């Protein structure tokens, strides 16, 4: 009798974007056995499309009504089912109390990431390190994308190049103005409104891309909550553009949304779950990141994506729960004529520099995961050297030393950088 492959459980109770960013870990585990995914019940249908081989365990976490009896009754059954399984390992990806309560029913030694031991929440050294390298005031030099952070819960994850297909448009750009031929999806808002462009800004961006793409069909995407935003955007759009707009906000179920995104040639979006879905499907993304959204933390995964990142030094941490004390100073660069010129495909324009600065980033890979290279704008706006050192340190920690530097000789790492990643307790105390 061949040995039965092991079962693994991933606990990912967060929203759609995080669910999709679990992909590299999930695929890594699928090489070894059967992967179960405990997820919010509201995302189960979508997850079935994104992860067709995974065994799904829907949990009443966020979606659904607010009836506690129903939550307990449904979850007691689901949890009892999970408790009966003999998982080789449980990967709990979040410190969220809901996820910890779920992880609490497994032997702590079999839980990777965030575990509950005798009622005490504990984090692995890797998780604690991540808390330090992306802590307040350090996020501009944060070295690792979230997808890769979770992937490295596994000692030898799948190569980053194998996670998502390289992005490419399905249809060629028509050269005849007005003929279009392409389909452009515009995602109206993310969960955090300050991370999105207001309609008057977004309208100019859509028009610029409309011009560059020779008049594609434009699909407005979003939930029912975004319908008002769609109407506002339409008011700001030029008549020629408006003719090609189809407002799908609030009109698609998640499986419909999956299908629509798959049919796009380009997605224009802030940092959203839709963006990660596009990356999963190999749809090129043009993303605009501002406020607390940083490309190197949650940017689209894979080759062929572009992120326009607004960087304002001194803002970190950006607390979206409070009014911005700087009048959202990271927003105006997205109305700069130079940038709109670049978007519309005309060469020779310059991006806004100084502080805040706007940077054009394109996705790329190294041996530990995805990264973003500055292709336009003042690269000096970012603490690149610091970030590179942090990433180098992580590579050593992950035993992926990479290629030696151009000089070829050994180079030290700044003490301050080391302190932002490694704490004394890491080498003094046992894991957990």
């Amino acid at each position, binding site marked *: 009798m061949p040995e039965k492959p092991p079962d693994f459980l991933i606990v990912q109770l967060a929203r759609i974007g995080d669910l999709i960013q679990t992909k590299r870990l999930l695929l890594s585990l699928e090489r070894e056995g059967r992967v179960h995914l405990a997820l919010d019940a509201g995302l189960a249908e979508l997850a079935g499309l994104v992860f067709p081989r995974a065994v799904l365990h829907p949990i009443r976490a966020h979606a659904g009504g607010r009836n506690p009896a129903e939550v307990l009754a449904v979850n007691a059954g689901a949890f009892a*089912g999970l*408790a009966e399984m003999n998982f080789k390992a449980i990967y709990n990806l979040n410190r969220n*109390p809901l996820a910890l309560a779920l992880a609490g029913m497994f032997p702590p030694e079999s839980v990777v990431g965030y575990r509950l031991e005798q009622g005490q929440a504990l984090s692995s050294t890797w998780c604690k390190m991540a808390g330090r390298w992306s802590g307040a005031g350090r996020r501009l030099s944060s070295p690792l994308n979230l997808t890769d952070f979770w992937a490295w819960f596994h000692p030898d994850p799948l190569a980053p190049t194998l996670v998502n297909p390289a992005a490419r448009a399905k249809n060629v750009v028509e050269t005849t103005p007005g003929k279009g031929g392409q389909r452009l999806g515009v995602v109206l808002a993310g969960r955090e409104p300050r991370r999105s462009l207001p309609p008057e800004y977004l309208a100019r961006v859509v028009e610029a891309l409309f011009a560059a793409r020779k008049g594609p069909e434009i699909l407005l995407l979003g939930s029912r909550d975004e319908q008002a935003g769609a109407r506002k955007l339409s008011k700001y759009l030029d008549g020629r553009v408006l003719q090609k707009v189809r407002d799908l906000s609030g009109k698609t179920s998640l499986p419909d949304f999956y299908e629509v995104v798959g049919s796009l040639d380009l997605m224009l979006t802030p940092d959203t779950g839709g963006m990660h879905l596009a990356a999963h499907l190999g749809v090129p993304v043009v993303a605009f990141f501002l406020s607390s959204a940083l490309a190197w933390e949650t940017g689209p995964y894979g080759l062929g994506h572009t992120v326009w990142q607004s960087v304002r030094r001194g803002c970190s941490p950006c607390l979206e729960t409070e009014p911005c004390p700087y009048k959202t100073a990271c927003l105006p660069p997205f109305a700069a004529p130079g940038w709109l010129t670049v978007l519309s495909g005309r060469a020779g324009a310059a991006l806004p520099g100084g502080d805040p600065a706007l940077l054009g980033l394109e996705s790329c890979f190294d041996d530990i995961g995805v990264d973003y290279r500055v292709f336009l704008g003042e690269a000096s706006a970012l603490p690149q050297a610091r970030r590179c050192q942090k990433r180098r340190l992580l590579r050593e920690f992950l035993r992926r030393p990479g290629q030696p530097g151009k000089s070829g000789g050994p180079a030290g790492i700044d003490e301050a950088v080391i302190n932002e990643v490694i704490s004394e307790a890491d080498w003094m105390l046992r894991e957990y």
Partner: protein
Amino acid sequence: MMTRILAVLPFYGGSLPVGRHCARALRDIGCLVEVFEAPEFYGAFQALKGLKVNGGRLEFLENSYLNLVGEAVLAQVERFQPDLVLALAQAPLSRKTLKRLKHDGVPTAMWFVEDYRLFAYWRAFAPFYDLFAVIQKEPFLGELAAQGVENALYLPMAALPELYRPLRGGANCQAGECGPADALSPAERRDFGADLSFMGAGYPNRRLAFRELGRELAGRDFRIWGTEWEGEPLLEPHLRMKGVRITPEQSVRIFNAAKINLNLHSSVKAEETVSRGDFVNPRTFEVAACGAFQLVDERLLLPEMFEPDELATFSSLDDLKAKVDYYLAHPAERAALAARGRARVLREHTYQARLRRLLDFAAERLPGWPRSRQAAPWPAGLPESLTSELEALAEKLQLPRLGWGPAGGTGFDTLIAALRQHSGRLSGLESALLFLDEWKKQYIK
């Protein structure tokens, strides 16, 4: 709602088992109890002494560590939200910690199970407690009042009957008193049995008394158990188990196996072999709770706790020697006294009774205590199969039946608090309950 008590144990010492007995008894009388396990912090504290640094440096390090331990207590208070923090003598609650608790509106009590004449440091911390229970009366109660302690309570020692119990096969055991599982084995009767037995530390008055007793009682089987008996060659033949610390469970066996348990209260003054002090030690209640026989030295506060036909006392060493001879020759009288003594303990001198008194005192003296909590109701509309599972869970956690209506019974919050104390792997239902608790915090304001 169940009253929530956080019992803060000392690092070590005689009041440590008292603290554990308190926690047990508080649970028995229906409180929700958590324990701050200070002994688990003691190893690191001891390690500081191994540094061999100069005194000032060591003191700094020790105080820093004590501060940390105090912060740990505060963290547990913050999470558990107790109605009362109950500290035992020598518990690691600094004045700074006590001030913080007062500032945060968390009532505190200490059960000072020490002789105030020997442990004069009480003045430094007693005024910082909301309630201060002691094992002595006047003049200590007057001294406390003069020091500004408003809520002092005389709360004598006691026994935990679930631990200190008669064992079948004991030297004075009454038929029908003990269950089939609770028996002294023949080996235990041999190892722990004696004509005359003493269990306790080698205080100066005891050393002197026992040297004399050892001479006078030559030929009797006299055994001594406990610590701090070094440097007594005359007593060496009587000392058992090489003078190691005796566990409470071992002491139950020693008390049961001895024909006579000698109970001589401690005194630091060697010349006061029988000191006639005021407080009554725990051993008095523990031996009696075992249904074992004891000869105890006369104490000022003893007569109000036991009648003469419930406990045999002695007033001097000569009296003791005479009574040893008498009672060894009259086993039926020993058994009758022991039985009456045990009955009195079970009626009045249990930890459960003492802690009930302490909580009543808290209710008398602390306005609005215990504060009423907004009891979180059980979600309406749970399927019947689930409610019966929840009832079974409450029973497993030794909680009262669930209260489905507006009044009485174990509420959702109480079950969750009990579940959070539960050690070991959680079941699916237990995890789902903790999950629901977190879910409610997130979605039901």
